[in-house]
């Protein structure tokens, strides 16, 4: 029957109740059947609604539980990038020399060599895919939870003045979004990051291409990734590829790196933070493949601004653009990153220079008593007693 006829007959039968329309004898008015059918539909609607609500509640409970387990597992990881982050958040690093920066820092500066040469504890908190604003956030987080270092080595890049447009691998921060120093800049860069914090599984599933949740759950059942971070340093045992050749072919006229105002402000703020904590800051421009330097059209502008900051705030700037092996692909994985062998040679050069710097600029407190770190696996950290 159509809806209009139903409405009319329904009005006529207002107040009449039918328990079971099936028991109606043949010939009963169709409207009575329709009314009873609607009552049954009403109850079917409630069945559907109730089932959906139960389903969503169960789903939410599963999601919350799983999210909690993954986060718990990631907090307990001792290896890899999460291992470094966990040690930083728990205040277990407390190094005297901290290396900060992008992937060029992470894969180019070996703290073990720096330690061995200078006798001071060292740690690398570099982050893949990060710009200065995120590097500042990581440094602030480090300083929030760890004893302040004596020296911060800030690794610079041609893109140091580029503001972050999109956070690289946001899943690496998801277990720590409660941390104010990380949350604030992340929120500014990506306002949608609240979903990663408050919607269960969102951060581990939607924003994470590397399925880090597997690492978290694996940790809970006793499986850990092989360690490839050494005092925070992540070497790249890779050979030079044809990637640069393809890049040069695609960009025959060179490239320009952005110089954003926010990027400049981030670097200035980093300088201020180090000053406020009375930490000696050293800018280091790590080696870069010489042919890539020629392809960077606005290199002189970038370096002009870097030198300007360096002079204005009296921050030493050690520029390894003319490093003696800059033209040798043997020491590079690609045009921006040293490979494991290159990092070793560069770290030795840097350490020797650092040793000279420390000798020329002794720390205020002398008579350091140093206990050497055996390795990076949760053993006693180095404590410098003043």
């Amino acid at each position, binding site marked *: 029957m*159509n*809806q209009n006829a139903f409405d009319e007959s329904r009005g006529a039968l207002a107040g009449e109740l039918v328990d079971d329309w099936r028991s109606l004898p043949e010939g009963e008015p169709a409207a009575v059947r329709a009314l009873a059918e609607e009552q049954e*539909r009403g109850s*079917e*609607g409630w*069945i*559907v609604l109730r*089932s959906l609500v*139960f*389903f969503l509640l*169960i*789903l939410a409970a*599963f*999601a919350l539980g*799983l999210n909690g387990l993954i986060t718990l597992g990631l907090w307990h990881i001792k290896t890899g990038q999460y291992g470094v982050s966990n040690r930083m958040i728990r205040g277990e690093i407390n190094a005297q020399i901290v290396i900060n920066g992008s992937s060029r820092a992470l894969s180019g500066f070996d703290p073990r060599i720096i330690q061995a040469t200078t006798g001071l504890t060292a740690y690398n908190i570099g982050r893949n895919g990060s710009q200065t604003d995120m590097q500042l956030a990581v440094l602030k987080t480090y300083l929030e939870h760890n004893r302040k270092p004596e020296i911060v080595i800030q690794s610079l890049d041609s893109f140091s003045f580029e503001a972050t447009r999109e956070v690289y691998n946001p899943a690496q921060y998801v277990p720590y979004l409660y941390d104010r120093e990380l949350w604030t800049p992340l929120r500014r860069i990506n306002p949608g990051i609240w979903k990663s914090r408050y919607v269960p*599984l969102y951060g581990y*599933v*939607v*924003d994470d*291409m*590397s*399925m880090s*949740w597997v690492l978290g759950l694996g940790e809970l059942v006793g499986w850990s990734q092989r360690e490839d971070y050494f005092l925070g340093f992540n070497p790249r045992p890779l050979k030079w590829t044809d990637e640069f050749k*393809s890049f040069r072919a695609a960009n025959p006229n060179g490239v320009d790196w952005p110089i954003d105002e926010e990027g400049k402000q981030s670097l200035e703020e980093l300088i201020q933070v180090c000053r406020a904590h009375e930490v000696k800051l050293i800018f280091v421009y790590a080696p870069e493949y010489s042919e890539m330097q020629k392809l960077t059209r606005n290199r002189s502008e970038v370096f002009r601004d870097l030198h300007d900051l360096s002079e204005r705030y009296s921050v030493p700037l050690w520029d390894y653009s003319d490093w003696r092996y800059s033209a040798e692909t043997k020491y590079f994985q690609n045009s921006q990153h040293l490979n494991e062998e290159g990092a070793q040679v560069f770290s030795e050069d840097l350490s020797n220079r650092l040793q000279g710097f420390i000798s020329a600029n002794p720390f205020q407190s002398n008579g350091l008593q140093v206990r050497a770190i055996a390795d990076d696996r949760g053993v006693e950290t180095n404590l410098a007693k003043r």
Partner: protein
Amino acid sequence: MLFNSIEFAIFFPIVVALFYILPQRWRVHLLLGASCIFYMAFIPAYIAILFVTILIDYVAGIYIERSEGKRKKALLLVSIVSTCTVLAVFKYMNFLTSSFSGLAGLFGWHLSNAAVNIILPVGLSFHTFQSLSYVVEVYRGNQKAERNFVVYATYVMFFPQLVAGPIERPQNLLHQFREWHRVNYVNITSGLKRMAWGFFKKLVVADRLALYVNDVYGSPRSHNGLQLSIGTLFFAYQIYCDFSGYSDIAIGAAQVLGFKLMENFRTPYHSLSVSEFWRRWHISLSTWFKDYVYIPLGGRRVGPVRYAINILITFGISGLWHGASWTYVWWGLLNGVYLVTGWLTKEWRDRFFGSIGLGEETVMRKGMMWASTFLLTCVAWIVFRAKSLKDAWYVFSHLLQGWNIHQIKTEQFFLRQLPIAFAAILILEACQLWIQNRDSATSTFAKLPLPGRLAAYAALVLLVVMFGIYRKTQFIYFQF
């Protein structure tokens, strides 16, 4: 609005709830409004184009029904030409001008190729064809002209199938907008399960495989034969899962609202011949071309040469429908060649198999037929996916060269994704076989008490969520 978006996750429950709350006389208006919102989430201004095509065919349908003889035919032609003109302008303008320039160049004429920067309205090909089938069916007397503009507009714009099909026929869909759809537990739960299955295909399988395919086909010359082969296999499943996944979500969403849409895929990769493949792949489009192109050309009721030409024309146009590029045309023609060759060699093949003792029902014969059909389909997909014919030839000619098991991953596709990708394909195939025998499987599930069933469903949904890939990827067929 994409199905795999938070916007749709909010939009859909609201529309369903309102649909069942509202009285019948307001429901079609709600669906029209919801469809407008759905469409305008892409590029709002393009709803004007949709409105124009709807108006043209709505008016044309009424006048065609009232007319007779030459006037009736003329009105049909006007409707078809004007609808197709919109499609041609937005979809084929650059293709036509660049092809014309290329042709002129062969004669030594140099024409400036001013490319017009026109963005293709999403789903234009789909709702154009749906409108065309309406006017043709009215012309043929198989469908009464729809007098209610709101109902007709909703028929064209019905959001579950608006942007990527299935391409519905008016006889199937139009009347459903006038029917009373009651809340039905089975419809709603089945619809939701169908949607979940579609999301598994899209998020877990298609979007994961896309990471590999995009790298390989983006620069085929940077990849070895093993990567090209895996990339081709992955693309076969990517396009199937992307498109059939969308269809599943569309059919499921419509089912939740109590509407029944036509099936669009029937496990096409289980086909034993190319002709069977085309009866199982994108069924709504292939039947559309059969009814409105192939049969009017004469179909099989002509001599063998004309029959072969009819097939090639039909598949050539089908290829062109997919995109304004010669790779699509050649893909269509290649499938046409497959069909013609299959038809020409059928008797010979039957004799050959018979001579080696392989009857029609033997497993080995079926296996060989399945393998050859799948291989031929994959070769055709190379042409479909490649950026140019040159790239397609490179891929094809290097499939078996330079295999290097140590260089299997690509730039975006981590090695740990590979076992997951293969497992996803195996699970897909296993589930498809399970669904085909679903009477026994359903009874197993049905034995659980309600909380247990709901928990099992929740766990399955969570698995899809955990293994899904969430890059902002459109469905492949949106670009058609």
